[in-house]
């Protein structure tokens, strides 16, 4: 790493999280630390149940850690009010859930516009144009006005990805974004996200079970039983030397 790096987009240190009540209480995260620098793509890999989603919920400010700290764009989030947390989620974070979560009564474009409406910085036509642009980028240009319940699982997932990008967030947290997709769509989404991140100084944290994809990331964090036990550069990352 060069000494002149700009400040990281997201830092977490010593994150711990317990889930469940009393006897079924589980120590899901046992001290996770990560730093996401702008322009880099990070992959988190690990067996099912190791705590990847739990980590992403914490980083996405949807859950509160039992210990540890999170800093987004140099702001420690522990002290933020609900109002500020919401604003941060809306403006700076793009969250792609493991299970595509769309609003059922809304069309694809309307789903993508929901975060933009909350931000309220653009005019209706601009929002609409951006929604169409993003849906086109994920390969759904023809299904912009389709009600989301009439979309297939993979299509819904791609709408969710377009929606996560709606407000042009600095940090994108993606929980298996390509889990339901065929190879070509999977490729399209991965290159869309990585290009976006590399060209716009964003940060991407990607959970994946696909080693093919993981090795093309700048960093791969291997996780097990609630800890990251190894962080290494991706084997086929653009900048890495061929092994």
């Amino acid at each position, binding site marked *: 790493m060069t000494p002149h790096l700009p400040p990281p987009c997201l830092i977490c240190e010593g994150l711990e999280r317990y889930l469940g009540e009393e006897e079924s209480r589980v120590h899901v995260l046992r001290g996770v630390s990560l730093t996401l620098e702008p322009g880099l793509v990070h992959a988190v890999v690990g067996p099912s149940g190791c705590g990847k*989603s*739990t980590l992403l*919920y914490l980083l*996405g400010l*949807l*859950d509160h850690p039992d210990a540890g700290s999170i800093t987004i764009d140099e702001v420690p989030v522990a002290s933020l009010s*609900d*109002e500020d947390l*919401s*604003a*941060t*989620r*809306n*403006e700076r*974070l793009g*969250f792609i*859930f*493991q*299970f595509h*979560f*769309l*609003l*059922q*009564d*809304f069309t694809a474009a309307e789903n993508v516009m*929901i*975060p933009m*409406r*909350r*931000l*309220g910085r653009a*005019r*209706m036509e601009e929002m609409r144009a951006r929604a169409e642009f993003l849906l086109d980028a994920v390969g759904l240009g023809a299904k912009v006005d389709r009600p989301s319940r009439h979309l297939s699982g993979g299509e819904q997932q791609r709408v969710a990805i377009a*929606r996560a990008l709606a*407000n042009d967030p600095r940090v994108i947290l993606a929980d298996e974004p390509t889990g339901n997709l065929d190879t070509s769509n999977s490729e399209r989404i991965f290159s869309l996200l990585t290009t976006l991140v590399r060209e716009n100084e964003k940060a991407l944290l990607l959970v994946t079970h696909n080693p093919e994809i993981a090795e093309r990331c700048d960093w791969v964090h291997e996780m097990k039983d609630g800890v990251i036990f190894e962080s290494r550069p991706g084997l086929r990352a653009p900048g890495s030397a061929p092994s």
Partner: protein
Amino acid sequence: MIPPTLYIATRFIVSRKRSLILSMLGVVCGVGFFICTQAQTQGFEKYFIQSVLGTSGAVVISDRFQPRYTQFSGTSSADMVASSGQNARKYYEGITDPYRLMRVARSFSNVLGAAPIIRGSVSIASSFQSEVLRLEGIDMRYHLGATALREQIISGSIDGFGAQPSAIILGWMLADKLQVRVGDNVTVTAPTGTRTFKVVALSRSGINIIDETRGYINLGVAQSLLGKPSSASVITLRLRDPGRAPELAAHLERLFSHRARSWQERERGNLALFSTLKISAGITVSLIILLAGFGIFNVLTLTVLEKLREIAILRSMGYRRWDISAIFLWQGLIIATFGSLFGCGLGALLTFLVSLIPINLRGVIFATHFVVDWNVYHYLYGSAIAFVAVLVATFFPAQRAATVPPVDILRGSGQ
């Protein structure tokens, strides 16, 4: 641009059209019934007040009094007819110089008309039967300007009444009892003697107790018949603003040293009855609106449970707790707005239909149809009650929606 929360609220409403329309129907009915019942009770009350004002006047000036300075002296005075212990006054029956008081009273800007009346109880007989007659001697020159007598004439004519010493106007129910019609003769027996009168007109005030006993003759004739020359029992005043009658009465009482009573004071009992009726009808109907509120509470609580997932998604996309509450409060606001709008429409329709219902009221007042009052305040109050009920019913589901921790739902679903 419409607020995003309103936008989402309308979409949520559309997705639960049926149950929300059903619960809105409750609001519509509640507001409609409220308006309709208020229109009726208020209608009858106004009708009654109108009759009172048109018949006995807004302010009635009667007996002269003298403040009693020494409490126990002079009690044997023959002039004294009544004394009120509280006010310590000595009353003298009637008004000795009515026209002078009338002149002064008319100088008040609120006074539209003033008329002298002499009263006495006599007996009246037709060829069929005899009855008690509460006789009023009136000065037609002033009387029509101070009362609604002209509008109350239902048959015959009062033109030239002042020039006919033997003319009598009878209450229509009294005429009924005596079985006399316009043009018939009746005999009136007073302490000073008996006289024959010709019925020239029948009147209907709408208040039965008056219409059963009332008869009008000329003031001068009445004075001699009752043996009270050149005096009057009362002066009746018609006011521009009857609502201010109590103040004027109090003022005139001090000014004239005569008892002066406003219609509000005289009819206190009946007015209390009407307002009790209005309140009880209002309470009954407010209960309907309350019930509608419960319905809305149920529907919205169910909506919140059904939309837990979307709430969590919205939260994850940066919607604040307050935004989530707002989405549900908007729904309540929309229901309340349309509910009270349609409710006002229904209320107007019901009020109109009710006013067409023929009835045969012969109790305190006389009416052939339901009397209704068209009053914008009924619509405002009805809508206000609906808004309060709906917003209270919405508040708790909205509150609950805001406190849903998003991660529990996101983690829970799909796994």
